[in-house]
Structure formats: structure tokens, C-alpha cells
């Protein structure tokens, strides 16, 4: 051990040995913990569902009832979630942008759409409400924010990431009759920047940006409440519910002929599970403990009251040709639509 060569060999042996131990321990750990002989079900899903933690609860419940399956969620914006499914890298999607959903099914990639929950988007802004929009409807509020934006008194932050929330925001701007491509470039009260700020980020990051800039933004209730609870933001709700801010969550299964992973049966089970009375009851109360307010409203119970406001709104905004899933987009649906 006193010679140079001896020392070097000793050193290399020790390094090799420690590396070997590391790899062996890691490998064994992985071998023992990997999901053995389980069928993996990959669900690409919107961030607003994922970040509330509701999907983790669903995963646990589903896997308890169906020990054969292992559910993995990929949390993405609706636009990317659909793209992932089209590439064949996910087995089903949970999203909230009816127009994109329709396109997904029309192109033959998706079948058996099922609405399972809804809630309302809200417009949040600084507590002192510089644009004075509190109590207005969403469309009037956005028009007023733009006016005040032009005068240099208010700012608007957009997700700008093709997520479900972004799609909704764009459709609200369409309802105002303004041209989004033009207003994007409008300067704020003669100042350098525009009053319309594109974040290109997730909901939490966008809320934080709006918070820093004292700006208004469109948010989903769940992510907003979570950030308020964490003390990340001081923004307050200025526009709340109403027909135009309806947010409908649905599940779509990837068409088996376009989905090389071959998890059609597992996906159908998961959809059945989502609309089961057990899950629907859970959704009704989810969030009360953690956020002090429920986050989602189950959809299936609403069907018992045809003609109610909410059913009419969903039919108008999230039904295609009078159905949540027209027959040409159904595939071996079994009892799903009965």
C-alpha cells in the first residue's frame, strides 16, 4: 500500500466498488419497486386537474378497485395533452376545451367522450380593482379592462400556451367583438409595453405574474384557491361564474386503431370509473378540507334535472350536435351512454 502503483489501484478499486454498490442498490430498489406485471394506463391531462391533487385521489381509488392497472398522469396543457395522445404516447385524455376536443375526435384519434365535471372560470385582479369591474359579467368586464388598459390603468395577463384556459380566454375575447390579434399590440396608455401580456406559462406561474404586475387574468377556481391558500398571491376574485365562464371537463379515449399501446379496455374502465356514482360523490366534496371550498361540480347528477340553467349551458357550449358524444364518435361504448 506504500507504493504509488499500489495506492492507485487501491483507489480505483474503491471507486469501482462504490459505483458498483450504487448501481446495484439503485437497480435492486428499482427492480423491487417497479410496477410489476401491471398494465400501465397513461392519461395525459390538463394541469388544472392535476395540480389540485384530485387525480392522485382518483388514481388510488381506481387502482384499489382494479389492481391489474397502474395509472400514470402526464400533466400538460390541453393543447399539448391532445398532441401527446395523437402521437400515440397516451391512452386517454382529460381536458377542458370542447372545440379542441371535437377536432380531436373528428380527426379520428378520439372516441367515447364523456363529460364528468364542471366549474366556472373566474377573472381575478388586484384587490383595489383599478378597472372597476367588480360585479360585471365577464364580457363587459373584459371590455372595461381593455379600455382601462388603453388608458394605462390596468393590465391583462394571458396564459398564451394553448391550454384549455387560454382557449376559453380567446373565446371570451371573441365574444367581446374585439380582434385579439390587434389588441395584443395595443400600447398601455402611451407607455412602452402592451396592456395585454402573454405569459406562455402554466396557471400558477401566470397567476404569480399577474400578482407581481397587479394585472387581471382568467383563472380556474381550483388553481386560484390553491395559490391563495399557499400565500403566493393576493389577487381577488372580481368576476365570478355566469354562463360565459363555464368550464367543462371531459374524458376522451384514444381510438384503438390509432393507439399502438393497446389500452382501450383499461381506458374505458377509467372513464366508467370517472362517471360512477362513487367518483361523482367524491368530486362533489373534494377540496373542502384543503382549500375551504369545493373545486369541482360533478356532472352526472345534473342530468337528473334537464332544462336547468347548467344543463342548458353545457348543452350549448360543450355538446356536439346535441350529444356529449355523437354516435359516429362512439366505439364499443357498452353501457357508457345508457
Amino acid at each position: 500500500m506504500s507504493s504509488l502503483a499500489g495506492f492507485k489501484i487501491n483507489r480505483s478499486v474503491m471507486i469501482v466498488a462504490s459505483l458498483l454498490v450504487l448501481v446495484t442498490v439503485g437497480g435492486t430498489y428499482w427492480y423491487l419497486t417497479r410496477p410489476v406485471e401491471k398494465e400501465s394506463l397513461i392519461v395525459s391531462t390538463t394541469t388544472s386537474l392535476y395540480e389540485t391533487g384530485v387525480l392522485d385521489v382518483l388514481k388510488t381509488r381506481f387502482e384499489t378497485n382494479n389492481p391489474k392497472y397502474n395509472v400514470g398522469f402526464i400533466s400538460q396543457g390541453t393543447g399539448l395533452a391532445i398532441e401527446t395522445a395523437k402521437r400515440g404516447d397516451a391512452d386517454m385524455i382529460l381536458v377542458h376545451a370542447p372545440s379542441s376536443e371535437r377536432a380531436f375526435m373528428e380527426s379520428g384519434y378520439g372516441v367515447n367522450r364523456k363529460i364528468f365535471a364542471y366549474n366556472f372560470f373566474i377573472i381575478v385582479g388586484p384587490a383595489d380593482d383599478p378597472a372597476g369591474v367588480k360585479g360585471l359579467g365577464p364580457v363587459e368586464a373584459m371590455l372595461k379592462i381593455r379600455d382601462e388598459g388603453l388608458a394605462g390603468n390596468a393590465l391583462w395577463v394571458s396564459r398564451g400556451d394553448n391550454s384549455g384556459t387560454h382557449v376559453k380566454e380567446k373565446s371570451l375575447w371573441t365574444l367581446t367583438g374585439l380582434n385579439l390579434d390587434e389588441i395584443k399590440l395595443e400600447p398601455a396608455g402611451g407607455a412602452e409595453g402592451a396592456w395585454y401580456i402573454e405569459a406562455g406559462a402554466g396557471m400558477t406561474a401566470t397567476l404569480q405574474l399577474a400578482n407581481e404586475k397587479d394585472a387581471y387574468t382568467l383563472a380556474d377556481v381550483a388553481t386560484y384557491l390553491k395559490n391563495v391558500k399557499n400565500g403566493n398571491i393576493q389577487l381577488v376574485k372580481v368576476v365570478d361564474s355566469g354562463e360565459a365562464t363555464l368550464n367543462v371537463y371531459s374524458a376522451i379515449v384514444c381510438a384503438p386503431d390509432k393507439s399502438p399501446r393497446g389500452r382501450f379496455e383499461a381506458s374505458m374502465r377509467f372513464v366508467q370509473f370517472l362517471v360512477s356514482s362513487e367518483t361523482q360523490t367524491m368530486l362533489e366534496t373534494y377540496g373542502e378540507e384543503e382549500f375551504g371550498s369545493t373545486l369541482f361540480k360533478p356532472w352526472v347528477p345534473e342530468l337528473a334535472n334537464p332544462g336547468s340553467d347548467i344543463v342548458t349551458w353545457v348543452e350549448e357550449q360543450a355538446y356536439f350536435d346535441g350529444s356529449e358524444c355523437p354516435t359516429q364518435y362512439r366505439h364499443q361504448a357498452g353501457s357508457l351512454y345508457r
Partner: protein
Amino acid sequence: MSWTPIIEGVSEAVRLILSADKTVMEITFRSLQTAGYATLMASLVGVPISVLIAMAEFRGKGTIKFLFNAMVGVPTVTLGLFLYTLFSRSGPLGSLGLLYTVPGMALGQAVLILPILVSFTVSAIESKGQELRDLARTLGASEYQASLVVVREAYSGVTLALVSSFNRAFAELGIVTMLGANIRGVTRVLTTAIALETAKGELGLSFALSFILLAMVLSLNFLISIFQEGRLGRQGWLRPIVGER
């Protein structure tokens, strides 16, 4: 506000480590394992390539060295995107089922760190020079044995290359995000968990995970430095462990 997330983060990190939180342990192990496999794969390919580049004379040698050096700076998202389209079910390698798996992520990281490993190793070997090999050859060593002598003399440089590569893989986010998609219990590693908790606005937990990541990097590097060229080892307090020269 202000310092709260950082302070919370430190105490949360300590709590998670002391309580041996199962999820955090699992994520940390997966990080180590992915980066470990990646370093193993990259070194199996990279070290022989480096020896070849450093010791053989051939046309285009300069170009190849330049390419490897340039590739060190490739953005991880770009590489991740490229590999994602390869590994995707609708991509050319889709049938291998590598997407959203630990081996897939490790392979991606191996591709990322290969240029670092090769660049560092080549310069380590080259610095030890041609003379040593010639000397070994005149002493009757075969070409292969002479190469081994040089690699052994360039030992500390090669170790540095391996360690740097491992660190790069361990702390990397772009590739594991694209190829692993941060699926809980399957492909979630430290960096993707940090990104997720930040996206969720859980800054305290993000910091806690970051501190765990830093602690892992520091202690690994400390361990290596004990065995390394002996800067710590041969002087004073670690001598009983590593022995005297």
C-alpha cells in the same frame, strides 16, 4: 413573504431527510439510478472513443474533436425534443417502448453527457502525452497495454470527466421532462419534482427538494474527492482512510 419559502424549505428538507420520507427517498433513488445508468452507458461508449481519438492518428480527427466539444453546449430541451420524437410511439424507435421509462431517460442523459465525457477524457489523456505511450512501447508493451498505461496515468482526469458527466445528468431537467413526463412513481425524479412543485406554487417543498438535490451532489463529489488525486486524502486528517503514499 420574502425569506419565508427558503426558511420553510430548509426546515422541510431537514424534516424530509430525518423522517426518511418514502416518496422523497424513492424520487432521490430514481434520480441516482437514472444518472448512474447514464454515466455507465456513456462511459462504456465514451472512454474507448476518447482513447481512440486521443491516441490514434487519422484524418478528420480535429473535426471530430471539434464536434464533441461543440456538442457539450447542446440545450437539453433540444436534445429532449429530438429524442422524444425518436422514442414516441409514432417515432422510428417507438416499438422499443422507451418513452416514459427509467431506461429511456437514462439513455437520453447518456446521449447528453457523452460529449462532456469524451471532451474531458480526450484532453486528460492528451495532456499525459504521447511520450508515455512511446516509453511503454519501447519497454515492450503492446499497443493495447500502452493505451492502458496512458489511461491509468490520466486517471484523475478521467475520474473528473465521469464525475462531471454524472453531475450533469443528475441535475438535468430538460431530457427527463421530455422523455419521462414526470409520472408519479414511474419517472418522477428530483429535478422534475422540483419543477412540478414550483409550478404548483409549493415553493417551500420545491426548496426542500432542491436542498436534497444539492446535498446529494455535494456529498457524492466529496466522496469522490476523497479518492481523487489525494488532495484531501494525502494531507493529514483523511490519511488513515486512504493510506500513506
